[in-house]
């Protein structure tokens, strides 16, 4: 098992945001996490990557307990996150943003090679490499956030709503790229509002509801599930 989350409890002050969440991901999978606004999806990703502390429960990655590790050490182990709302560094150039993704790495040649790889996945970023990230369009910023997360050569990629606010054509492009990244051996935990798209590329899915896991199944079965259809697929 690559990632295992067991009975995780997370609080923001008095707000109980995650209530005993248990979830796992096998190496090579795309796992998706769907749920309404405020269900706790972002909280879960941030707890896995170490940005938010948990009160109880356990997160293990490749058999190693990472629950109490600081975020900057977790990146070194092979988990990276493209945060919600494309938090790119607005005042830095596209190149500098990518360099920061490789911040923990020292192998110069490998870094340049991976940067080329990101530019191949997202050709628009190459054209804008010296532009400051704040001047990119929303979709381009999303590409940059994903590209930046890839620069640390993760074995597990956490994506938080990569399709948020993008035009349908671009959504399809992003999802195609996510699948391509996965096919090269990166396990993906994908948080999405766009449940249809997410379930169509994922192998398995979880439905999160106000802080706990409501459903868990193979993606094609969730697509058929009446409850899911009503609540997340519009009919």
């Amino acid at each position, binding site marked *: 098992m690559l990632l295992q989350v067991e009975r995780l409890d997370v609080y923001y002050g008095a707000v109980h945001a995650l209530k005993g969440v248990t979830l796992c991901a096998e190496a090579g999978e795309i796992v998706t996490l769907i749920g309404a606004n405020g269900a706790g999806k972002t909280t879960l990703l941030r707890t896995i990557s*170490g940005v938010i502390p948990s009160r109880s429960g356990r997160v293990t990655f490749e058999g190693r307990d990472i629950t109490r590790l600081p*975020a900057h050490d977790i*990146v070194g182990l092979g988990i990276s*996150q493209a945060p919600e709302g494309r938090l790119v*560094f607005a005042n*830095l150039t596209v190149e500098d943003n990518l360099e920061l*993704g490789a*911040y923990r790495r020292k192998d110069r040649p490998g870094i340049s090679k991976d940067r080329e790889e990101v530019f191949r996945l997202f050709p628009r970023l190459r054209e804008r490499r010296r532009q400051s990230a704040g001047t990119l369009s929303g979709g381009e910023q999303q590409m940059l956030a994903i590209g930046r997360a890839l620069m*640390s050569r993760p074995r597990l990629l956490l994506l938080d709503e990569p399709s948020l606010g993008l035009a349908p054509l671009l959504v399809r492009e992003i999802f195609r790229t996510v699948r391509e990244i996965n096919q090269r051996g990166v396990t993906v935990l994908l948080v999405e509002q766009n449940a249809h798209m997410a379930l169509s590329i994922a192998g398995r899915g979880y439905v999160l509801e106000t802080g706990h896991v409501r459903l868990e199944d193979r993606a094609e079965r969730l697509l058929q599930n009446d409850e899911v259809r009503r609540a997340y697929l519009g009919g």
Partner: protein
Amino acid sequence: MIRRIIWTLGTLVILLGLNLALPRILNPYLFQIVILCGINVILAVSLNLINGFTGQFSIGHAGFMAIGAYGSAMLSLHAGIGWVAALTAAGVPPGVAEGAALFAALLAGGLLSALAGYLVGLPSLRLRGDYLAIVTLGFGEIIRVLILNIDAVGAARGLPGIPGWVSFFWVGLGGTGVVVLALNLARSSHGRALFAIRDDEIAAESLGVNTTAYKVLAFVIGAFFAGVAGGLFAHYLSYLNPNSFTFIKSIEVIAMVVLGGMGSVSGSVLAAILLTLLPEVLRPVKDYRMVIYSLMLIVLMITRPQGLLGSREIRLGSWVGKLRVARGAG
């Protein structure tokens, strides 16, 4: 490597040349303004490392300056003067002996201030924005009140008799030192990490940047150079008074950083010089001096809210390039 040695030697020669020339060309009043410009450049660039590079908000820079000023002055008064006497008696030229004693005093003042920066930097791990501003404001005031109440450092009477070892060379050296360090930092991967923290701390942390370490580091380096500036100030004026280190002084330095452009080293240098000269230039208008000074600041900030240079740097190379192009065209 060789280029670096040539640059270093060149800078030293220029500084020594100016050191000889300036006191002869300028009258004492103008010379003092040049020295104050240099000290303010060090203060502004060092605060820029904290406020501009990492996006923290410190209003306690006068406190760090005070620690460096009083710390270095006490060392010189109680030990440095004795060292100089002993060294000259042993045949060392007085200029060299004084230089060595001053260097030790500046270093000690800087390190003492850096230690304080570390202690103030620690809460900055938890606090951000307005809260950190209040902590640093409180820190600056505590330092001043402490000095006011410690008899050994002269309390409200001030501290007289500090040896006046500072010449233009030392101010120039301090200024060049902090500017070179800041420019190199800005271009390094450490600088990128600092800018990333400024843009989005959570994103930086989640990419593997140890944000706490960097934020404290910025405080420590910034405080060190503020302490050096304080030491230069003490050993230039030969007299210290707690009133030189009120929070008004901190605000003055913040104005230089904001006016120059957050994160722009050359902007800080330019603004520090400008804001040191401005009150002097306005002397003829007497009572209205500070009114006009403030008005000019307001107008500047309205017309250029991002500061004189934004976050850009002036590059000598690009000017030379432009000159060449202009000649080629003409």
